[in-house]
């Protein structure tokens, strides 16, 4: 009797320690975001003095100001446009290639696939220098099209790998049935394979969407003109110009993470899957 009580007490105290540890780390994770939101609701006068986490008066007008005068409406839409375009591009291009690598026969197949996979492993530093030169030559620099193509390329290898792994494990019977019904290869890819691959496509979508939304260096090099800039570059530019306008900057930062947080909460399952699978690839 006594020993069972002892074990119970031990178990409870163990749990308390674990939860204390986990909660401390959770607070450390969340506090910077909380402080960002809190700062975004203060005014230019109070932000340097008022250290309260929940300000007495909430100045939501900072958001309107950032959105309208700070130009964040434009940058937000730019980011959204680039993200959606790149993700659609990657889905089409990489699923076609993955389907071919998995199912179709053609000379040089293995070599091409190997090069795609090798690209994931070799870190080429400074490739952005050459990419910049190339885009200049092609007159694609400072154009949305150039940026979208570059970003499709960035996500291609991993997406092809994830999709090919899935297609390899998919039973062939469904495709055979479709073929007997007179479906062309493109028809099979579009009507049979893509719908079946939905779970993997979700992983591909989430990983690439996060990646494009958060991308910085290529956007910095490619875009000179402000109306084309995505959020990440615009935030840096804004900070450079209005060094001390912290409430507006914090409002801009908060606006920029809303889609990411929403996507993360809604698609958490797929992110976890993508991260664990993606890591095994590399």
């Amino acid at each position: 009797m006594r020993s069972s009580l002892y074990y119970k007490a031990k178990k409870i105290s163990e749990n308390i320690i674990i939860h204390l540890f986990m909660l401390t780390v959770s607070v450390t994770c969340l506090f910077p975001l909380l402080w960002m939101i809190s700062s975004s609701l203060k005014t230019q006068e109070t932000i340097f003095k008022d250290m309260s986490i929940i300000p007495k008066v909430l100045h939501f007008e900072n958001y309107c100001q950032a959105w309208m005068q700070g130009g964040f409406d434009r940058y937000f839409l730019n980011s959204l446009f680039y993200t959606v375009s790149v993700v659609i591009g990657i889905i089409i291009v990489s699923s076609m290639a993955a389907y071919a690598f998995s199912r179709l026969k053609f000379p040089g197949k293995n070599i091409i696939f190997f090069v795609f996979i090798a690209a994931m492993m070799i870190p080429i530093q400074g490739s952005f220098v050459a990419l910049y030169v190339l885009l200049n030559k092609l007159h694609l620099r400072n154009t949305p099209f150039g940026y979208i193509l570059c970003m499709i390329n960035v996500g291609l290898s991993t997406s092809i790998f994830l999709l090919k792994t899935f297609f390899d494990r998919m039973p062939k019977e469904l495709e055979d049935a479709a073929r007997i019904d007179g479906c062309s290869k493109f028809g099979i890819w579009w009507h049979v394979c893509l719908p079946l691959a939905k779970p993997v496509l979700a992983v591909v979508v989430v990983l690439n969407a996060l990646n494009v939304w958060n991308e910085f260096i290529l956007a910095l090099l490619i875009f000179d003109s402000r109306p084309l800039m995505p959020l990440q570059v615009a935030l840096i530019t804004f900070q450079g110009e209005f060094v001390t306008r912290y409430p507006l900057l914090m409002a801009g930062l908060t606006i920029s993470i809303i889609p990411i947080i929403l996507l993360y909460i809604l698609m958490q399952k797929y992110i976890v899957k993508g991260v664990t699978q993606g890591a095994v690839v590399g």
Partner: protein
Amino acid sequence: MKLKATLENYIFVLPATIIFAVFYIIPFISVFQLSFFDWDGILPTKIFVGLNNFKEVITDKVWWQAVWQSGYITLIALTFQNAIAFLLAWACDREIRMKNFYRLIFFIPPVLSEVVVGLVWQWILNGNYGILNYWLAQFGMANLAHNWLSDPNTALTTVAIVHCWKGFGWGFLLFLAGLQTIPRELYEAARVDGANAWNSFKNVTIPLMMPVVVLVAILTILGTMQVFVLIYTMTGGGPGYHTEVPVLRILASMRGSSRFGYACAQGITFGVILCMISFVQYMVNRKSRA
């Protein structure tokens, strides 16, 4: 007919291959080409200088300081960040409440952009108006408060810790996934054999987790050596050169001093360093498995 079918098959890989060739292979080759030239990126004339760019990289003190500093950040990430990640995953790998909540929270920093993380932390760490210094003063440690990011003694470590803050959730996720593949029966068996918690941790968890630990270590090293957006936003490499890292130097050679050839030579040197690290890791990994 057969030819037509083969051509049709090629159409499937054509878009991917073209994009890949233009935006990956061509830049890859031209990095090597450009590294032999002195070129400002604008003039039509490039001056061939042979290996001079590489010779200069080798004697470039700031460059090697940057390499060393990214190594320092990597060391902190390898030990501090991964230790915390492992500890959290180990604590999470049992029947406890709010497991999913913790997992949700820990992975928030990794999904944020480095620009956002950098700017928010810069504000928290601000020497005059930052909340960290305010709190230190409140709790009677005002002598500890100072300008974290502009003091050469603390700037690099501060940046490294923010990097760990952003990255640990990612290691946590991989460790947790690894821990969950360990069959529960093994722990049961160890307990029946009279092993205490520490024994079963040492003799069951650690050996079975070794592959995951190695994987996370490799990814941490390669990822952290290439860190720069966070630093670009927080300090821009300053004060002086105290938080410079290789990729920032490459960017500075290209944008600051318009020396495209030199930037490419730096990029290749750094690529070689990374490949050497991967190779050493690979050999060590193979040896430990054999």
